[in-house]
Every structure is written in structure tokens, then in C-alpha cells.
């Protein structure tokens, strides 16, 4: 239990639209441990993204608690949440969402400078990370619209990593990328996870899901089933078989 970083208790999210209520998440009880690579799957409309954004403190749940590192973040004010996010969470979006009036480096620093004031060290760290994911200086001086989607997404991962958050939240990080770029992005995420950082990822994609060691299948806002892949290494074909069997069971 000691390495549990995130638990939810009866997490509910309801959207109201002119009196019509739509319950997207229903009484979810989840637990995410340090070092987990959790993958959330499920049919569209199952509330995967909603869950991800509620977990990450981007959005407040309607009911229930989210305990992050012993604190209930569901009661935080918006600004308090912002302060919480910048330290503890990194985000990778399907639409990448880099600020397109800033170069890749500036995008990373715009996040990094929120936490650390040491610009030089930060710039060095960022440069090292860029190097690590194969983005050269010439490239990270460019604007997001001038680089390919894969490069932009890698930069977005670095932006997520720069503050050394405890969890990375990824919302279909490969969704807008071609398969080669997607693999590269997944490789980076796997590597990040291997270094001990927790990742929570929402995906539709089997190849992405295979990277996770814990698959949570969401249906109609509730956990439908769970599958543990941790015992198999990534290359093991059994891993993929197990996952397929699980998904079939879930009715994917």
C-alpha cells in the first residue's frame, strides 16, 4: 500500500446540459501504484478521457474523492489544482496542444519555469531530454507548426516530464500520429515508465495498450474488468494473447 499514489473513492462525474444529466463516471474505485503503467481502454463514450482528466486534477469530480499522495484533491480550488498539477502531473494529449506561438524549447520552459527558477539548469535538462528523444537543437528552436506531428508529440512528452511529475497522464498520445511516429512515442513512454514514473494512458489502440502492465476496461462509466500484464515482458507473445483474450471477454 505504501507505494499507492492515487486512489479514488466512488468517483462520479455528471454533466448537466439544460437539466438533462449525463452520468459519465459512476462510483469508480481505483488505485494507482507508483511505477504502474496503467492503460484505460473501453468503447468510445465510456468516460475514459473524463476519468483521465478527473484523476489528473484538470477537472473536478462531481462526487467522490481523489486521494493523491494522501491529500484529497477533489476539494481543491482551481488555482490550488493548477499549483498541484504543475508539480505532480504531466500531460500528453492526442491533439498534442503545444502553444504554437512558441518554439518547442519555449513550450517546455514555459512549463518548467513554473516550478524551477533556475533557467540555465532547466534549459540544460530540457536540452538533454530533447537529445534523448532524438530532437536536435535545430529542431527544438522551431515552432510546433514547423515540425512533424511525431516530433511535436515528443516535445510535448518532454514538456510533461520537465517538472519530474509523479504521474504522466496521456490521452491517446499516438492518436494523431502515423504508426512509425506512434511507436517512437510509445518507446519513450515505456522508457519513462521503466525509470519508475507512473503513467496513466487512455487509448483505443492495441499496440499502445500492449505497453501497459495493467489494463482497465471501462464501460458506461464503470470499471468492467481489469487485466494484469505485468508478469510478461513486452516482447512476449503471451502478453498480446492475454490482452486479446481479455478484450474479447470485455466485448471489445
Amino acid at each position, binding site marked *: 500500500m505504501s507505494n499507492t499514489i492515487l486512489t479514488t473513492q466512488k468517483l462520479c462525474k455528471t454533466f448537466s446540459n439544460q437539466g438533462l444529466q449525463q452520468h459519465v463516471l459512476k462510483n469508480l474505485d481505483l488505485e494507482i501504484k507508483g511505477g504502474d503503467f496503467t492503460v484505460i481502454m473501453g468503447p468510445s463514450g465510456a468516460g475514459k478521457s473524463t476519468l483521465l482528466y478527473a484523476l489528473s486534477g484538470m477537472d473536478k469530480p462531481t462526487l467522490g474523492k481523489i486521494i493523491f499522495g494522501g491529500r484529497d484533491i477533489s476539494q481543491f480550488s482551481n488555482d490550488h489544482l493548477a499549483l*498541484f498539477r*504543475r508539480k505532480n502531473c504531466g500531460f500528453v494529449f492526442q491533439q498534442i496542444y503545444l502553444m504554437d506561438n512558441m*518554439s518547442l524549447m519555449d513550450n517546455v520552459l514555459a512549463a518548467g519555469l513554473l516550478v524551477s527558477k533556475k533557467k540555465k539548469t532547466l534549459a540544460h535538462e530540457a536540452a538533454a531530454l530533447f537529445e534523448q528523444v532524438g530532437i536536435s537543437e535545430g529542431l527544438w528552436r522551431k515552432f510546433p*507548426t*514547423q515540425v512533424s506531428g511525431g516530433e511535436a508529440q515528443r516535445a510535448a512528452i518532454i514538456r510533461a516530464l520537465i517538472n519530474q511529475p509523479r504521474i504522466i497522464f496521456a490521452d491517446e498520445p499516438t492518436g494523431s500520429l502515423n504508426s512509425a511516429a506512434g511507436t517512437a512515442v510509445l518507446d519513450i513512454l515505456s522508457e519513462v515508465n521503466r525509470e519508475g514514473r507512473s503513467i496513466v494512458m487512455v487509448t483505443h489502440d492495441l499496440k499502445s495498450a500492449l505497453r501497459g502492465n495493467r489494463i482497465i476496461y471501462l464501460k458506461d462509466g464503470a470499471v468492467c474488468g481489469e487485466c494484469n500484464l505485468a508478469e510478461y515482458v513486452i516482447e512476449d507473445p503471451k502478453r498480446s494473447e492475454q490482452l486479446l483474450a481479455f478484450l474479447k471477454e470485455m466485448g471489445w
Partner: protein
Amino acid sequence: MKNTLMLALANIRKNKGSAISLLVFALIAATLLNLGLVMSLDYGKHFDTRAEQLRTPHVVIVQSEVLTTDEQKNYLENYPGVIEVEKQNILSGFGDHYLNGSNAECIVIFANAAGEQHMNPPQLIGESYPLDNESIYVPYLMKAGGGHDLGGRYQINFAGEELYFTIAGFTEELPFGALMNNVYRFYVSEERYAALAADFPDQHACLQSARLFEKSLGLQLELDYAKEFSFTEDNEEPSQVHSFSFAYNVIKSTRTMIPSIMSIIVIAFAVILFCISLIVIRFRILNSIEEGLTNIGALKALGYRSRQIIISIVWQFGGITIIGVLAGIILSRFFLPLIGRILEAQSALIWEPGFNWGLAALSLLFLTFSVALISFIVAGRIRKLHPLIALRKGGLTHNFRKNRIPLDQSYGPLSFLLSLKQLLNNKKQALTIGVIIALISFASIAAISVYYNIGIEQDEFISIIVGEKPDVNLILKNSGDADSLLKRLNARPEVRKAFGFENISLLADEYNLNAWIAKDFADLEGKMLHAGRYPKYENEVALNGLLAKTIGKEIGDRIVVKQSGAEREFLITGFIQKWEESGKTMVMTYDGLLTLQSDYQYRCLSVYLAKGTLAAAFIEDIKKAAGDIFISTIDINEQVDSQFGSYGATFAAVAFGMLTVTVLVVILILYLVIKAMILRRKQELGIQKAIGYTTLQLMIQTALNFTPVVILGVAIGGLCGHFGFNPLFTAIARSSGILETHMPSPTVWTIITCLALIALAYLVSMLIAWRIRKISPYTLVSE
């Protein structure tokens, strides 16, 4: 037509906030424009109308009775263009009266209320009592600007004697009843008049008035009359105090001066605001095109023609303007009586401005047409927009730029750097705001300077108007006493210096000028001179710069001066200016005048007192010491206070109004721009929130975004206002012969105002940026 109207209405409904702010802009511009137009056009016209109704003379000539001949009356009657001539016996002489409790020098005219008078007969305003031997009718100014009430005690010092009356009524007095002219006509009963005439045998005078076909010819008649009778050898005492004349134009310009300055300021401000409105409208249209790009694409795809969409935009903005302008015109209708009352204190002219349909229509047409035109031009770029490109939202906004401020290499707070980036990416918008802020701060700084110089630190302004401002003026009964008195005065310890300084009428290059005479101009402390130097030798003069320009004289040229039949050439050594005499001023040395009139002697002495000496006490002292040799002793400071005190309030109102409008404009413009910006950068703000920016950080970033432009705009506008104030003022006062002024702009005030404007802009930005809190990072996902 129906379709386009519908589109326009839909657009207005969609964006109520900016529609309202545009409305306010149009409203303010229309209000000010209408106010300015009515004031500048209607006020003068009203004066003319009223003057015609009262049969105001176009020339008035006051002369000592002994000098008045039938020949003169014949001359007037036979002068081409004269309709009627009237000659009246009056009493005229130097005196003092009291305005708001302080004493002021003036020329006093007593007239017999029962006497026959066709031109501007005593017309009573408001309540009145019949005249008895103790009561008097005084000009309306005494009530409007002087604080006197019906039935109150009224003191006039006339030719050295103190006279007391009860006020029985107020007359609507055009030629002799305004602050600037400083000549007042009082009506007393027949018996009292006879008594006064017996008491003051030396003050008997004649008032000759004439009306002409063309009132502007009065000036020429005045000049010709002076040439014919005043500067001849027969006229033994040409500088007689009660020998003077006014033409209608002079009367009118002195009485409408303050309204015209005010109207110029207001119109200038209206024009600035109007420019701002146009800039804002242009900005709004571009913005709405950008925002509604997909809409426009959809409309085009539906088969709307570009023209229809453009017309809908023209409808949208033109419609808002029409409503705003109409409201503004109605609003100005409420402001006008207020302004009329403020002006009354100086002009003593009862002005009840009616609704001027013509001017209102003019404002409406002008403003609406310009707005419609600019909408049409700006919206014209819709024509070039292909529906597909519009639908894709592409083309217009897509661009690549250089990274101006790489975060890893720049220093400074994060919010500041980010806002700077944003600023550099929106240069056009920054320019728009900068220009607007510069214009508006220019206007308000100029207004504050006007207020400061006219309302607070009047010295410079007054010295421009009166030229020389000593502490005490002494006017002697007998000019022979001057030299000995001066010697005694200069020997007194409380007198810093005393010298003879007075004006006489001269003819220079055929112009009747008011010449100021002094022995040594180094004694003068006023700032009449604005080019060259004062005359030093007997063959030198200095004259008004504007007059010199009209007659084509430069410094170093020679000019012929006539007096008492003698005439001589003088060298022009400098240009002077003095508002009071509307540019018909010159100065000349005492020795120089002696070459024309060898028996000339001073009657009027200027005394400067040592610091700490009370003028009133000094006057008492000198009266005791010198005996009864003065016609009048005047405490100049007190007089100035009474004459100019009320200007402060007037211009404070103007300055306050402008500052209010400035603040309003700053708020509106920032509201428009920041709102549009937040809308446009919604996604970016969402991303920033997602990665952990707090609302406050983003607000500061947004507010800082405009701060550099605002600072720059305020700095430019402030500097222009600060240093451009004097040229601006000169431009306004040019027609009165003022070519150069050195009125101090209040540096501290300017700085404070500028800082306040910047702070205001920052606060307002923060306040408007407060709506960022509504943007949630979650909108990224849900959209």
C-alpha cells in the same frame, strides 16, 4: 435587405458586450461633437441675434464732453453704411467695483435711466424694482459672475469718490458689461444723475453710438473716426482716460472668447474620440471577420453573395452608430444648459441653447457616414475570401515567424516574457492600442495643462492676457505729480521698484494701436516680448507679431508712427503679444514718444512691492503720505483674482470631463481588445492552465501583454501633451495676437496622470482578464 438586416441583428446579439462598447464610443463622440458644434456655431449666432434684438450699436465712442463736436456727429451720420447715430450725455471715468468681494479697476459709465436711448436700452433681466435716488441698475455680470443680489448694497468708486447704491435690477448689457472689456454702464434715476453730474464736472462725457448695414464695418468706422479726430493737433489730450471706442466685432470676440476656446477643446477632443471610434470599429470588424470565418464560409457556401455579407456588417456597425449618435445628441441637449450656466459667469450672456436640428443632423450624418464607409472598406476584404478557405479557417491566420524571445536565452520574470512574446506576435493590435492610448493621453494631458494654467497657476496665463502685472497701479489726477512721486516711491523700503507705465492711442502704419510707454523696458517683469528685444532708444518700437505679419513687417524694418499730428519712422526691434488688446498693441520708449509729443507725462504708475508687503496696506499708506492726488489706486492682484477666479471652475469642469471620458475610453478599448484576445487564445490559455498555470498568472500575463504598449502610448501622448501644450494653446489663441506662450505644463501633474493612466490600464486589464478563470483546461477535451 431583409436577410442582411437579420444577419446584422444576429451578429449584434451574439456579441452584446462589444456592441454596447461601440455604442458608448459613438455616444461620447456624438455628444462632444454636437456640444462643440453648437458652442462654436450657435453661441456666436446667439450673440448676434440677441444683439440685433437689443439694437446693439456697432460702434461706441466715448469722449470727454468738451472734445465732442457736432462735426463729429455729422461725420458719423454721413459715413457710408451708417443707418443711425445716437448721441447721449453720460458720466465716464476711472473707478473700481467689487466682484465677489474683491476690488477691480474698471471704467465706469453712468447713464440716465430716464434718458432717451434707442440702442441697447436698459433691458432688465429677472426681477427688478423701480429706480429711486439711492438705487441703481447694474450689468447682469454683477449677478452671474460677481455674486451681487437684487436689493444688495453696491459700492462703486468713481473718480476717486466712494458711491453707494442699492441694486434695483440687472441689465442685459452688451457693449458695456463683460469681464474682458472692463467697461461697465450703470443706470441711475434722473435726479441722481443730475446730482452726480453736478458732483463730477470733470467726468462729463458723450457716448456716440452708430449702427451700420454691415456690422463688421464698425471696425473700419472706428479706425477712420480715430484718424479723422483723435490724432490731430486740435485734440489736446489724446490719452484722456475717458476717450475710447469699441467696435462690435471686438465686443463680440471678447465676450465669446471663453466659449470659443472651450468649443475648440471640446471639438478637438471629439475628433480624437471619433478617430478612436473608427480605429476601434476597424479592429472590431477585422476581429469579427476572423472569429466568424467559418460562419462567413458557411454563408458563402449557402449562396450569400459577398456584397450581402458586407452590407450586413455595414448594417451592424452603422446601426449601432446611429443609435449611439442619436443618444449622444439627446445627451448633449442635457449638457448644453449646464455649460450655458458655467459660461454665464464670464460672458454674462443668458444663453438657452435650443435644439439645433441642422447641427444634430450634421453630426448624425457625418459620424454615421464615416462609420459606414470604414465598415464598408474594411469588410471589403470578405470579397477576396474563398468559401472553402473560410470554412477551413485557414489562410488568414496561418503564419510562421521568428522566435523573438527564446525563453532559454532571455532573462526576466516568466509572465513578462510570455506576455512580450504575445505582444510581438500581435504588432498591429499593439499599434492600434498604442495609438489610441497616445491620442487619449495627449488630450487629457493637454486638458490638465489648460486647467493648471488657467485654473491653478494663473500667473503666466494672466501675463499673456494683461501683459504686465505689477502689484499696485496708481493713477494720478495730475500728470505733473508723476516724477516727484516716483522719486519718493522708489525711496520707500517696501517698494521694490516703481516706474511709469501706461498706454496711449497711436496710429502706426494706419492702424490704431494701443501703445505702452515706459522709460526703461528692463524694468518690466511681464512676458509680453516673444521675439527680438524691447525698444531701447528713442527711435525704436516693438509691436504685436501677428499685426507685423499682416502688414508685412519684420524685425529690423521701419514703421511710421503718428501722434498729435507729428509723424516719424521707428525701427522695429521686437514682437510683443498681449491678449487683451486682440493684437493691436505696441510698445515704445518714453523718449521715443517725446519726439512725437514733447509735453507728454505719465499719469499711470506701476509699483512692484517688496516681498511680504501687503498691497492694501501700502495703498492706505501712500494715500496718506501723498494726499489726494490719485484718481484711482488699484490692488492688481485682487483685481486679477476677481476677474479670473471664475475661469478656474470652468476649465476644471472641462478637464474633469475629459479625464472622465479618457478613463471611459481606456476601459472600453481594453475591454474590447482583451475580450477578443481571450476568445482567440482560448485554446492556448487552456493548455497553459493544463500544465499548471494559475488564473492569476494568466491574468498578469494578459495584463502585462498590453502594459508595454500602454506605457509607450502614454509616454508618447504624455510627452506630446506636455511639450505640445504651448504650441496648441498658441494655435487656439492666435487670432487674439498670441504667437508664442511659455505656460508651464505641470510636470508633476503630467507624471501623476501618466502613471495613473498606466495603473488604470493595468487594473482594468486585470479586471477584464478575470474572465480567464472561466476557461477550464477541460474545454480542451470537451471541444
